[in-house]
């Protein structure tokens, strides 16, 4: 199993540009998550999904959109990039929700908005 994979690994955007961060998991996990990690800070949840077709907002959803058309994929869309979105983005998945289930993380995407 590849686990959780993310593409691209690095990206530089200009203000106002759009892009999609890709996330795929091959563990047949129901739950998937997008986090962002700012320098010196912990991770904050952007969006999460409890299954195909179901998504919900996390702590910091503004400026982002997600979709979950399949169990495997959970892309994150930035429509109008802003410098405040410069961060490292992590995708994660878990078999189910709750404290019994470990979240598996992807390697991250480093995004810089200039």
């Amino acid at each position, binding site marked *: 199993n590849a686990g959780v994979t993310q593409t691209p690994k690095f990206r530089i955007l200009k203000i106002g540009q759009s892009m999609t961060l890709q996330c795929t998991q091959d563990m047949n996990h129901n739950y998937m998550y997008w986090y962002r990690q700012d320098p010196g800070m*912990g991770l904050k949840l952007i969006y*999460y999904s409890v299954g195909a077709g179901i998504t919900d907002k996390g702590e910091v959803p503004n400026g982002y959109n997600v979709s979950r058309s399949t169990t495997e994929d959970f892309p994150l869309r930035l429509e109008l990039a802003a410098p405040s979105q410069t961060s490292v983005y992590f995708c994660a998945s878990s078999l189910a929700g709750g404290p019994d289930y470990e*979240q598996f993380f992807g390697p991250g995407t480093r995004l810089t908005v200039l």
Partner: protein
Amino acid sequence: SQELEQSPQSLIVQEGKNLTINCTSSKTLYGLYWYKQKYGEGLIFLMMLQKGGEEKSHEKITAKLDEKKQQSSLHITASQPSHAGIYLCGAMNTGFQKLVFGTGTRLLVSP
């Protein structure tokens, strides 16, 4: 909302020394997770604790969840350069939808 505070924020220890990292929650913990992040990389799962008083070990790393379930400690015995990285504690929020993370502890191990 639940907050996790980690201490210390950063730590430099000499190789072979023991160290402890603490994670204190503002609310009761329902599942406490420890992750390690190497600089510039993703998160690696270390351990998960669920019950008050629970203690788990993996190689030279031991994690405990206190009886009152509002604090966890991560102890590394005889530290090695390979232990260097950022240690993050995470806890399930009360709705069990997401992990709330602490701000991390940066560990450097000097030879």
